[in-house]
């Protein structure tokens, strides 16, 4: 086909119609596929079977091999990709092993094979150490515990889920308490930024893929990744209503590190990368937004605006936000402050009706996701039903561009490989412009 993947994606993001809708599988930690499912997919496709290289440790997402990228016509990859095409710039971790105390010096391109509890051999990077514990297996990243995967489990869960730790700011009472937290630990290190820059430049010059940067550093957002992560999911929601000075103080600190990080990142990769994530902030639930628009405007809107504004002022990168759930009322707000792309477009959530979304917002924001319902259709329907379902969604979302095809969040264990193939085959064949 005529267009290069990078140009195809840029065209879609500009709300033009390229030759076909661009496709994403595995470029982000929210448009990926679980290692188990990926293994089964390779088997189904008759591809070589080997341990699955993991690119997101907590969610156990697979790095998608080039042969699958080619087969499914994927147009975008992430800058920190750990399989070919991969930038030859490793990041070196130096830490004390939790297993034997020895000093380790390993690159993030060195892997070992681990038999995951869900029955697949995976390649874990050597800076991750795994120790068996009562509940399952504890994971350590460069010497720091980050989660435990249950014995029959599929993902590593943070310690607060296991009730083994409290959220870091759970007990703060005053603005002074908040100051004492080590906010600088959220700031991105210069050597990390330098590696990011080298990788971005390499992939820009040596591949035709569109490039996305997923790394934002720090807490990763203001709401779900920010306040809720630091104070507790419930507690933060009432902080925003009845402990406002505390909430403001916390958000001021979060915003300071978010701005620090985005500046470093934009300056490093702005000329090479087409899309950058700005935050991962679930603002919705299945049934509705978690907060009112008033609360959003009071605490978040101006902070997001500054974050997005910096990217737009200092680069030509498109800004990408992940926000799960029923977020309909916020989309207009985000459009108003210049957000380019929204993900995952959870069509099963209340108010997230594809036709309504496209009609009201389609010309002003790109939908990166919304490609298949992952709660009921993708795991449970027959392949023919998946095809029909995907066609309907493409017909709604694709016209006029502003649509990058991806599933609604990561493809989970239990999804039949034939459904995945049906989905991407339809996206490729039926996604040709003009959509009939």
């Amino acid at each position: 086909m005529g267009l290069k993947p990078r140009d195809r994606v840029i065209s879609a993001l500009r709300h033009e119609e390229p030759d076909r809708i661009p496709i994403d599988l595995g470029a982000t930690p929210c448009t990926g596929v679980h290692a188990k499912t990926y293994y089964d997919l390779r088997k189904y496709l008759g591809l070589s079977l080997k341990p699955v290289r993991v690119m997101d440790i907590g969610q156990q997402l697979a790095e998608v091999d080039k042969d699958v990228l080619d087969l499914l016509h994927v147009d975008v990859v992430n800058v920190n990709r750990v399989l070919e095409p991969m930038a030859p710039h490793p990041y070196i971790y130096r830490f004390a092993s939790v297993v034997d105390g020895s000093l380790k010096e390993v690159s993030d391109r060195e892997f070992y094979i681990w038999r995951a509890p869900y029955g697949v051999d995976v390649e874990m990077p050597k800076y991750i150490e795994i120790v068996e514990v009562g509940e399952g297996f504890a994971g350590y990243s460069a010497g720091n515990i980050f989660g435990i995967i249950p014995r029959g489990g599929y993902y590593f869960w943070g310690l607060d889920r296991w009730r083994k730790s409290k959220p870091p700011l759970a007990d703060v009472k005053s603005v002074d308490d908040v100051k004492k937290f080590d906010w600088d630990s959220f700031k991105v290190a210069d050597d990390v930024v330098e590696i990011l820059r080298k990788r971005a430049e390499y992939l820009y010059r040596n591949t035709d893929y569109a490039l996305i940067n997923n790394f934002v550093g720090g807490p990763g957002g203001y709401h779900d990744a920010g306040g809720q992560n630091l104070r507790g999911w419930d507690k933060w929601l009432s902080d925003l209503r009845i402990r406002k000075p505390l909430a403001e103080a916390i958000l001021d600190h979060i915003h300071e590190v978010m701005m620090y990080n985005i500046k470093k990142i934009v300056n490093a990769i702005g000329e090479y990368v087409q899309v950058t994530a700005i935050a991962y902030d679930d603002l919705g639930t299945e049934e509705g937004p978690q907060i009112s628009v008033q609360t959003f405007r009071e605490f978040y809107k101006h902070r997001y605006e500054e974050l997005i504004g910096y990217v737009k002022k200092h680069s030509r990168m498109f800004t990408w936000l992940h926000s799960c759930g029923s977020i309909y009322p916020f989309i207009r707000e985000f459009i108003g402050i210049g957000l380019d792309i929204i993900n995952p477009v959870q069509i099963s959530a209340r108010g997230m009706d594809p036709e309504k979304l496209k009609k009201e917002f389609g010309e002003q924001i790109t939908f990166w996701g919304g490609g298949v319902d992952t709660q009921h259709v993708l795991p449970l329907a027959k392949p023919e039903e998946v095809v029909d379902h995907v066609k309907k969604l493409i017909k709604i979302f694709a016209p006029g561009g502003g649509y990058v095809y991806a599933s609604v969040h990561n493809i989970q264990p239990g999804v039949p490989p034939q459904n995945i193939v049906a989905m991407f085959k339809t996206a490729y064949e039926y996604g040709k412009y003009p959509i009939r």
Partner: protein
Amino acid sequence: MSVDVLSSIKDSLVNLDMDKTIDFVKKAVELGFKPMDIINVLADGMRVVGVRYERGEYFVSDLIVASEIFKEVMNILEPLITRVGEVVRPFGRVVIGTVEGDVHDIGKNLVITMLRANGFEVIDLGVDVPPQKFVEAVKQYKPDIVGMSALLTSTMINMKRVIEALEKEGLRNSVKIIVGGAPITEKFAREIGADAYGENAVTAIEICKKLVEELHRGK
């Protein structure tokens, strides 16, 4: 005058005004109202909050503020309850947990918050709870209701194992079972032999109240 105080408590809670609610509660106590009357009027208020949530007028954050107000009020009332010697019969006792292999808990925790704010006593077993632990909890706490949560299609089948374990121990008929979570459906609940399916934290409360009534009538 006296009736006004109680309805002021209810209105302040419904409007999510922590300070006003506490002021009116203190006033009601001064005027000699029984703690149980105050708790009942708060429960009425919580019901209105739940209705507004279902209508999309209130959000999850509002449910949580309402439950925090309730908790604050209980801090004021609890010492009075023990002083007066009044036995506060909670609306029911619930044992709840996320099933084995599953560590999702946001939904479960919201249900717990709402249950407590509606006068239930809740024992939270946490996450990744094997069937045997549910059985032991039923033996130990003798709850009215057992609640189970799951978010994965691969773990929801463990709900059936819990029900079977309770049957095996002869405990099934001593409790009512409610199940919930994104992949759960009314059909699934029926298939595995649960008593009820709770679609969200708000409907779960009303269902739990009915289940407790059913259980006590049966006994």
